[in-house]
């Protein structure tokens, strides 16, 4: 009796499953699935939720224009919950189960490193929108944020040449991005003749709040007769008490400027920025840039999110560029097949929001303008310096002994880590 019913139920299940599969197959035929892999909970939710909304806005807009290749785009949103191993699991789910054509996602470098093998194994396509430490180029990833030579190096050049900084404090949060960036910067500064005793390096844990000692040390380091600047790769909410302490100990930007690589409009929108006026940030986009493209984008964003106080920031622009590039590449390839799209991507040009053109390079990085801004009292930035033209992104730093001979070129070399000395390609997962 029991057995019979069990069988029946099993049959029923099977039927339902078949029906579902047929339905989803039919469904898949008229839409193109776009994966969104951003944390919607946990510590990174603050930053990543905005990016998820950006992608949803772009998809909605594209669908209003009739979709891509005559098909509507269908977003598949998953929540990896700021949990790095979960990123890999969710990526696998998007690629294998949902069979998405492209994924927009990740923020921290550790999450990108976690999904990288998944994308390479399943031949997926990932657009990564955040400035990062470089030293990577995967066939399956397009890096739409800045490489170190598009952010860190120009910022240091600005401090050195325009502000006249002679002593350097490299302060960062203790994880892979600050450590690699500071390694590159230290090598770069030394190549410019800066002595060991003029460089101070300091690491603090995530969420550090007792800054009085470190700020006092910076003050002391800066009172030795040479102009001192701080290069900050401090990440997340530890920045708030850090800047507060700077204000309390009366370190003004005029004496010791702090240039930050991870502090943008979004991060400043929650805090009192009056004591921060004049401190610097280096990005490839500022909300305050006065171009028609940017004004249009801000208007659209505020209408979509239904809040006319919301700010825009650099990684959002990166997603805009990446998304538009992907659409163009799919149309050029006349297919969403990953290999065809990857081949079509290189060389694609789309306008960025600051009045220039972003072009996808053979190393899967972009050309970008570099902007240095000073914090205003209202939490926005005034651009005080920018590069003459566009800077092509360099995946492998020229200032690290291990990586200066490495080259990435997915067109002629078909390799992300070609060693020009040994004339060898080290394979996808170069360490």
């Amino acid at each position: 009796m029991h057995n019979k019913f069990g069988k029946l139920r099993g049959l029923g299940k099977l039927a339902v499953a078949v029906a579902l599969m047929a339905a989803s197959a039919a469904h898949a035929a008229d839409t193109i699935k776009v994966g969104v892999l951003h944390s919607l909970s946990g510590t990174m939710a603050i930053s990543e939720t905005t990016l998820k909304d950006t992608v949803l806005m772009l998809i909605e807009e594209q669908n209003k224009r009739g979709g891509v290749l005559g098909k509507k785009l269908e977003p598949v949103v998953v929540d990896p919950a700021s949990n790095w191993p979960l990123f890999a699991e969710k990526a696998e789910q998007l690629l294998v189960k949902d069979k998405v054509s492209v994924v927009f996602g990740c923020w921290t470098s550790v999450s990108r490193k976690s999904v990288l093998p998944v994308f390479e194994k399943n031949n997926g396509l990932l657009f990564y929108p955040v400035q990062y430490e470089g030293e990577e180029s995967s066939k399956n990833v397009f890096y739409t944020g800045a490489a170190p030579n598009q952010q860190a190096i120009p910022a240091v050049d600005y401090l050195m040449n325009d502000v006249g900084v002679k002593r350097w404090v490299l302060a960062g949060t203790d994880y892979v991005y600050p450590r690699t960036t500071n390694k590159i910067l230290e090598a770069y500064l030394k190549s410019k003749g800066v002595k060991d005793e003029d460089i101070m390096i300091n690491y603090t844990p995530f969420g550090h709040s007792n800054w009085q000692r470190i700020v006092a040390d910076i003050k002391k380091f800066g009172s030795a007769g040479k102009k001192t600047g701080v290069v900050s790769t401090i990440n997340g909410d530890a920045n708030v008490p850090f800047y507060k302490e700077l204000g309390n100990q009366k370190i003004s930007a005029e004496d010791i400027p702090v240039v930050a690589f991870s502090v943008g409009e979004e991060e400043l929108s929650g805090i009192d920025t009056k004591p921060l006026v004049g401190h610097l940030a280096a990005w490839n986009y500022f909300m305050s840039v006065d171009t028609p493209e940017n004004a249009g984008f801000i208007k659209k964003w505020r209408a979509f999110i239904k809040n006319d106080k919301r700010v825009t920031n650099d990684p959002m622009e990166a997603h805009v560029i990446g998304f538009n590039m992907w659409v163009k590449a799919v149309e050029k390839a006349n297919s969403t097949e990953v290999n065809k799209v990857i081949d079509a991507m290189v060389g694609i040009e789309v306008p960025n929001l600051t009045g220039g053109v972003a072009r996808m390079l053979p190393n899967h990085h972009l050309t970008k303008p570099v902007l240095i801004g000073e914090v205003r009292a209202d939490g926005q930035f005034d651009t005080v310096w920018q590069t003459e033209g566009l800077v092509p992104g360099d995946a492998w730093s020229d200032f690290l002994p291990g990586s200066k001979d490495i080259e990435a070129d997915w067109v002629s070399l078909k390799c992300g880590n070609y060693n020009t000395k040994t004339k060898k390609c080290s394979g996808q997962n170069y360490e």
Partner: protein
Amino acid sequence: MKLLGCMMSSIPGVRPGSLLLVLLLAALSHCVAASEAPSFEQALGALATSNFKQKERAAGELVGVRHANTRAVLDALLEGNLYYRKADKRVFIAVTQEAGLELRDALTLQSAGTADAADFSKITTNNQLRKTLRSALASFDLTDPDAQVRLGAVNEMLRSLDADSVSILRARERDEKDESVRQAIRTGLAIADLNHEDAARRLSAVEQLKGSLNPEVFNRLTALVSTSDDGSYTEPDAKVRSAARAALAGIENSRSFYSMLETLFFGLSLGSVLVLAAIGLAITFGVMGVINMAHGELMMLGAYTTYVVQLIMPQHIGASVLVAIPVAFVVAGGVGVLIERGVVRFLYGRPLETLLATFGVSLVLQQIVRDIFTANNRPVETPSWMSGSLQINEAFSITYNRLYVVLFMLIVFVILQWVLKKTSLGLKVRAVAQNRAMAKSMGVRTEWVDALTFGLGSGIAGVAGVALSQLTNVGPNLGQAYIIDSFMVVVFGGVGNLWGTLIGGMSLGVVNQFLEPHAGAVLAKILVLIALILFIQRRPRGLFPQLGRAAEG
């Protein structure tokens, strides 16, 4: 008239013939050039550019013409209130209003109505320009009736001394009545004298600067004794050099003394935070023996209470923190009583279950806060009386927020001691803690006392949260960052002993801060933790163990 005067002045010795004519012409052309020195209007117009170098020049010219409106224009530029009209590059002082920009003509300072912000471009400044502006504006303040303003102005000018500012200071020295301002001016003049060509003058300048802790003095003296690339000294005179070395040694000495004091203060302030976080726990854990894992979340509630109080009274941020203290006590205390009545009282004598249950409560509280206030950090404003620092001298200053936290901790500690030692509630709390059955048989309502004790400890946690809201980010995870530290302090100090908590927290803070410069923030914390584990191994009951009969309770 001006032209004539100019000509007259240039012909002191009359020379014959054509030479005179040539000279006259030369003088004339010179005069024309001089009269072409930019007017206020021209200099103002030159500000309407995006080139910072040009802006700096224009600002310098504005100061040079000493127009009645110079000050207002430069102030507006410094504040970011100077705009130019895109159409005709006319400069306005403007304030952003709902309807657009409320304009005043920068030339006449007359109101020019309100206009659409899109037609105007803001004249932006950068750090270098602001520094120049501040120094230029300081020279206006030298004649201010308030001595403090004058002192600030002189110190501002000391940061970037040039020939102009030195001559202004020199002129001011004679008229200055206030001793401290005069002292500051003399320091400035002595710094300027370090570049004097006369070695004796330089020597006396070094002598005069001997005891000064002004960082600029240190920099200049260091420069004097340093060598340039070819091995020659910047300062040619050996006598001046040795005097400078001696002066530097003296400055270094007092500097390192003050840096010791600074570290000590940093330690005490970190210790105060630890004590504040732990003292509520010293009551619930120390006196009642309840392991309350939700203690950190009660602090978080206190911090959020501060935020809400600020939302309710946005006009009185200065007072809001003081108002928040009793409110936070009531809120956190109330939640504490609820926790005790709803969860803890069923679990007395079962520490493991209490631990798990209160851990659950902590997760619930976090999620409630996330649902109400979102997962993002909330901005709690720092009142003006708590920002900035108390400048004791030029090498040593104490930030107000930390100073107040130390004082606040002491006040809380004294009040708590008073409550426990001098009030009838305190008597009952101690009675129940020492011997529950005996207290009960003497007519103490132990259940009621339990609830109030737990509420008291929780309320104190809320009050600590108010202090934390001024030091760290107010977010749902605030409590987790402090719960471990709190238990550490209570266990180290000795369970059930408030004095132990005070001494324990303070010594942990000071040790941590003395280690940090050598070991770094992360390693210092690890070292303290290891030392603590070893200490507990030797003395399991902490610094001040309870003795006698109380120990068994």
